[in-house]
């Protein structure tokens, strides 16, 4: 019995890998994706220009700041665009008709899409990071392990946002998915402010107590993306501890698991007509 179970999981892994591989191929052969990659590269190169214009001594700071900003921005952008488009396209172009009747579980289809997107994002973040670290090194800025850790945190944020986009795309159309996922991203970046406002003695929630439950719900549901921002630590040369990385990973994973479970539930019930 136990052997059969582990066999089943192996089969699931093989099928998810096949589905993810196909998703990866789709993105890599897509001009929009390649275009975004180039744009991100150009953005990074632009930071060189900016840093040379900066006040003496601030050049490296600009390089660092801008690098974190562009890698995270383009990562999130690509995650949202792919999340919005890839699953929807599969249904819209009816290619899903050839997949669902195959001996695959529906949850494997969702996981395949997700892991395929992650694979693309690993490549994207990896390429941009190498490019950026190269620039830093060329400019003689210190390349520290903290930068690597901060990049890892950025990647965790992208992993989470990808799951958010996938969840929305399992019931809505691309533009709406894009809007909703971007909304979660933006709110997630500032949700700690909402938390602070809730405990404040004055301000919005005191003036309008009716909004309180809404604010509380937002704080409870929306991920606090500040968790994944290590740029200040790098700039201020504060070490990022291993235990922090572990807890940030746990925070990310708990969201991802819930979001994937929701996506599967929503996808499971769908008619493909």
């Amino acid at each position: 019995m136990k052997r059969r179970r582990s066999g089943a999981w192996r089969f699931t892994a093989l099928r998810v890998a096949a589905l993810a591989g196909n998703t990866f191929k789709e993105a890599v052969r897509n001009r929009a994706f390649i275009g975004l990659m180039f744009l991100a590269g150009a953005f990074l190169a632009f930071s060189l220009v900016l840093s040379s214009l900066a006040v003496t001594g601030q050049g490296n700071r600009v390089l660092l700041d801008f690098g974190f900003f562009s890698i995270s921005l383009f990562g999130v952008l690509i995650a949202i665009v792919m999340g919005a488009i890839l699953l929807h396209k599969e249904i819209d172009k009816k290619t899903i008709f050839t997949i669902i009747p195959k001996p695959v579980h529906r949850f494997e289809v969702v996981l395949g899409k997700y892991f395929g997107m992650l694979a693309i994002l690993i490549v994207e973040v990896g390429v941009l990071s190498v490019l950026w670290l190269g620039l830093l090194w060329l400019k003689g800025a210190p390349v520290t392990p903290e930068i690597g850790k901060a990049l890892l945190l950025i990647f965790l944020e992208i992993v989470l946002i990808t799951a958010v986009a996938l969840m929305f795309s399992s019931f809505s159309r691309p533009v709406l998915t894009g809007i909703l996922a971007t909304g979660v991203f933006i709110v997630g970046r500032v949700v700690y402010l909402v938390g602070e406002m809730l405990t404040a003695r004055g301000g919005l929630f005191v003036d309008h107590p009716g909004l309180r439950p809404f604010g509380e719900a937002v704080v409870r549901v929306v991920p606090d993306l500040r968790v994944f921002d290590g740029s200040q630590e790098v700039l201020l040369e504060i070490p990022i501890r291993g235990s922090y990385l572990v807890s940030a990973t746990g925070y990310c994973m708990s969201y991802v698991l819930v979001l994937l479970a929701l996506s599967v539930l929503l996808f499971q019930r769908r008619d493909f007509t």
Partner: protein
Amino acid sequence: MGEVDAVIEVEGLRKVFRGFKSLKVGPLPIPWGQRLRVEAVAGIDLTVRRGEIYGFLGPNGAGKTTTIKMLMGLIRPSAGVMRIFGGAPDEIETRARIGYLPEQPYFYDYLRPREILDFFGKLFLMPRAAREARIDELLPLVGLEDSQNKKLREFSKGMLQRIGIAGALLNEPDLVVLDEPLSGLDPIGRKELRDIIVAQRDLGRTVFFSSHILSDIEMICDKVAIIDHGVIRAVGTLAELLDSEHLEVEIIVRGVSQEILRDRFASVARVERIGEYSRLIVGEGQSNDALRVILELGGHVEGVVRRRESLEDLFVRSAERRGPAVGEEGA
């Protein structure tokens, strides 16, 4: 092994599509006004036996694709029972034995023929060597060995159909389900498809296919079902359905207008136009009366032919009638 002889069993299968007619405003479909309720499949029974070539025929919108999609797990039935190989259609083990060609085979257009078949093969958990061997076998079979290096976005509709057929045969399925396999194919393609289907049956496989157009392909069917408005109108072997009971007489007439003919023969005959002539098709017993009426109307009878009903006639007759279904499911 105790496997039942019936490969597909369907009882009381129904699908009602519900929803709102939606008006798309930007990204948001806004439900408006009228509710939508379409009974696409209105409680049908089907039995497809092992080794049969089964034709599932009917006009556009009859409910063929909806039925097939329910069998393939793409759509949830509103009611009814489905079994494939005696088990639930959505079990992995069942699906591993099915090959399916969707209605309009849309494929990943960024892939090449080999790549897409290889991807499907992986989903069937076929080992690499088996995938390659099978693809080497299938590409020439469907006539695509010369187009291997093109991406699918450069393929014509007929070529995509061929890839779809290869995809449906990839896993050497015990049951091949083809939704409108003729569409997009030229006459040569149809002939080849017919040979492929017969070859599948000769290997002991079961083939279930739908079609809204009639061509020679129906002649290879061991059994056909005719569906219209979600209801099965006729089931049987071609010999049973086209039996002598339906002998007809075709009368070619000139000199009487279509309208008058249609008016006079509304209940007993079909009237078709062929250039300046009209063709009346009446039941065998009614030919004398029909000829008398035509002569009274001042028409010229140019020819009278006794003929056996064609499948096309049956098709039209079944689609037109709203009464009880003809033919019986053989026990």
